[in-house]
C-alpha cells in the first residue's frame, strides 16, 4: 500500500489552484516547511507571505486581503488556527463570511511526538460551531489535493483539515470532489460505517474484517463535515440499520455528534462513535497513538458488533 501525506496534497493543490487563480495568495506563520506551503513559495514567491509566529495577525490580514478581492489561504497547525486564533477566525473571517481559506495541518492524534499541546482533537468542534464555515476533512493525499482546489473554487470561508503523518492512499475515494457530498464506498445491510478524514482507510479495513465474519457493511465517507450531507447520512442509517461513525478527533463536537444530531431527529437508530475519548493525547508515534486511542479498524469492528441487531 502507498502512504502519502495529506499536507503534501494541500501544497500540491495550492500550486495547481494558484495557476487557475492569479489572485490566490498564501500566508503562513513560520511553519511553512511543516505545512508544506514552502512548496508554493518556491513556485510563487511574490504571492507568499510569511507572517512570522503570529497566527492572530495572519488571520485578520487574510480577512483584509479577501475584502480587497484576493483569495488568501492562511496556513498553520490546527491548534493555532482554531485555539490561538479562534477569535480572529470567528470575527474577522466567519462572521463577515469572507473568502478566506484556512489550511490547518498537524490535526488529530497522529500529529504524534509533539504531544497533546500540538494535537488538534477539538478543531472540528470549534469550527463547526461558527456559522458560515465549511469544513473539509480529506481522507488521503489525493483527496486533500482535490479538496484544496475545490476550496479555491468555492466562494466563502473554508477550514481545511490535514494531518502530519503519512497515511494510506485510498484509491476508492478518488472521484470528483464535490463540497457537501458524501462518497459511497461499500454497500451492505448489516451496519453502516461513516468516516471522515484518514479514518476512511480504517473504515474500509473494518468492513473487510466484518465481511470475513459474515457481516456486510455499508461505508459512507464524508470529507465535508460541514455542511454535512444530511440525505446520505439518513440513507446510510436506512441501509445499515445502525451506524458507527469514525473520526480522528474528539467524540465531542465532531462527525459523530453531527451524525447523531441528524439521526436523532430524522431516523433514530442505534449508533456508536469511534474517536478520541474526552481526554488529551500524549507523545508517541502516529501508529502507536492511533492504536492506544482506539482509532483502528478493530475498534470500529468492536463498536459495530455492540450495536448490530
Amino acid at each position: 500500500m502507498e502512504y502519502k501525506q495529506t499536507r503534501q496534497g494541500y501544497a500540491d493543490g495550492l500550486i495547481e489552484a494558484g495557476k487557475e487563480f492569479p489572485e490566490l495568495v498564501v500566508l503562513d506563520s513560520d511553519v511553512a516547511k511543516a505545512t508544506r506551503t514552502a512548496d508554493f513559495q518556491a513556485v510563487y514567491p511574490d504571492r507568499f507571505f510569511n507572517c512570522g509566529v503570529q497566527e492572530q495577525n495572519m488571520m485578520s490580514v487574510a480577512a483584509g486581503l479577501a475584502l480587497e478581492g484576493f483569495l488568501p489561504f492562511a496556513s498553520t497547525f490546527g491548534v493555532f488556527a482554531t485555539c490561538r486564533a479562534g477569535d480572529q477566525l470567528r470575527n474577522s473571517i466567519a462572521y463577515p463570511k469572507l473568502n478566506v481559506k484556512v489550511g490547518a495541518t498537524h490535526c488529530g492524534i497522529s500529529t504524534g511526538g509533539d504531544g497533546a499541546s500540538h494535537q488538534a482533537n477539538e478543531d472540528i468542534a470549534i469550527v463547526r460551531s461558527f456559522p458560515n464555515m465549511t469544513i473539509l476533512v480529506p481522507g488521503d493525499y489525493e483527496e486533500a489535493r482535490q479538496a484544496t482546489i475545490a476550496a479555491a473554487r468555492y466562494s466563502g470561508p473554508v477550514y481545511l483539515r490535514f494531518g502530519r503523518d503519512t497515511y494510506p492512499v485510498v484509491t476508492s475515494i478518488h472521484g470528483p470532489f464535490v463540497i457537501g457530498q458524501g462518497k459511497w464506498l461499500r454497500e451492505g445491510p448489516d451496519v453502516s460505517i461513516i468516516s471522515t478524514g484518514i479514518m476512511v482507510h480504517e473504515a474500509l479495513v473494518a468492513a473487510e474484517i466484518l465481511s470475513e465474519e459474515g457481516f456486510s457493511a455499508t461505508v459512507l465517507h464524508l470529507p465535508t463535515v460541514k455542511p454535512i450531507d444530511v440525505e446520505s447520512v439518513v440513507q446510510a442509517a436506512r441501509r445499515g440499520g445502525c451506524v458507527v461513525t469514525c473520526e480522528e478527533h474528539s467524540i465531542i463536537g465532531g462527525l459523530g455528534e453531527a451524525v447523531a444530531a441528524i439521526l436523532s431527529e430524522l431516523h433514530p437508530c442505534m449508533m456508536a462513535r469511534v474517536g478520541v475519548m474526552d481526554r488529551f493525547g500524549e507523545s508517541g508515534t502516529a501508529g502507536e497513538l492511533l492504536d492506544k486511542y482506539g482509532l483502528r479498524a478493530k475498534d470500529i469492528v468492536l463498536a459495530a458488533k455492540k450495536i448490530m441487531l
Partner: protein
Amino acid sequence: MVYEARSGHVGGSLGATELVVALYYHLMKHDPCNPGWEGRDRFVLSKGHCTPVLYAVLADCGYFPLEDLKRFRRPGAHLQGHPYQPKTPGVDASTGTLGLGLSTGLGMALAAKLKKQTHYCYILCGDGEIQEGQIWEAAMFANKYKLNNVIAFVDRNYQQSDGYSEAIMPMDPLNIKWESFGWRVYDIDGHDLNEIIKTVEDAKASERPVMIIAKTVKGKGISFMENEAKWHGTPPGKEDYEKAMEELQYGV
C-alpha cells in the same frame, strides 16, 4: 442614537469625533453613491465599539438615511453594535473584538500594494485596545512589508472601560514604542481639526507606516462625561440625555 438604543458607547465616540470628521470631510477620497469604489481611501474602526460616531458621519455623508440611526442596535436593522461590513454601506471592514481591525487594515493595505493602487488605509485604534497582543503582531507586520499606505491613529484618551488606563495597564511612552517597531510617529491634539489635517497630509510622504497618537478627552463636549470612565459603555438616561443635548445647544 445611543439614547434611543439604550445601549452603546458614547464616551469614546465623542472623543474621536474630530478624528472621524477630519477623515470623512477633509482627508479621505470617498463616494457615498459608490461605497465599493476601488479607488477610495479605506477606513477601519478598530476600536469597533465607537460605532455611534462612525454611523453618524456615514449617515451625514449620505451612505444611508439619517432615519436609520434610530434603529441602531435594533433587531433587523443594519446598524450593528460593532461595524459589520456586509450589512452597512460605507463600512469597509468588520471589527468588534479589540485588536482585529489594525491587522485587517494592514491586509487591505497589502492588497493595495500588490495591485499598485495609490489609496490610503486609515485605521483608528483605541488606547485601551492597543493592550491587545495582536496589535503588536500587526505593528511588526506593517514594518516588514513597508506599508506606508497605512495611516493609523491611537485615540489616546487615557480612559478605558475600568478606569484610568495608566493605572490599569501602563503604556507610556507610546511614541517610543511605535517608533521602535518601525513606524513614523506623530503626537498631536486629537481635537484640533487643523492639526489633524496637516499631520495626515505630512504623513502621506512617509516611507514607513504611520501612527498618529492623538491626545483626546473621552466624552469631549459634554461636561459631565469628560474623562469619566463611567461613560465608556453606559448609555445616557433621559435626564443625562436632555442635559447633554442642551450643552450641545440643540435645545431640547
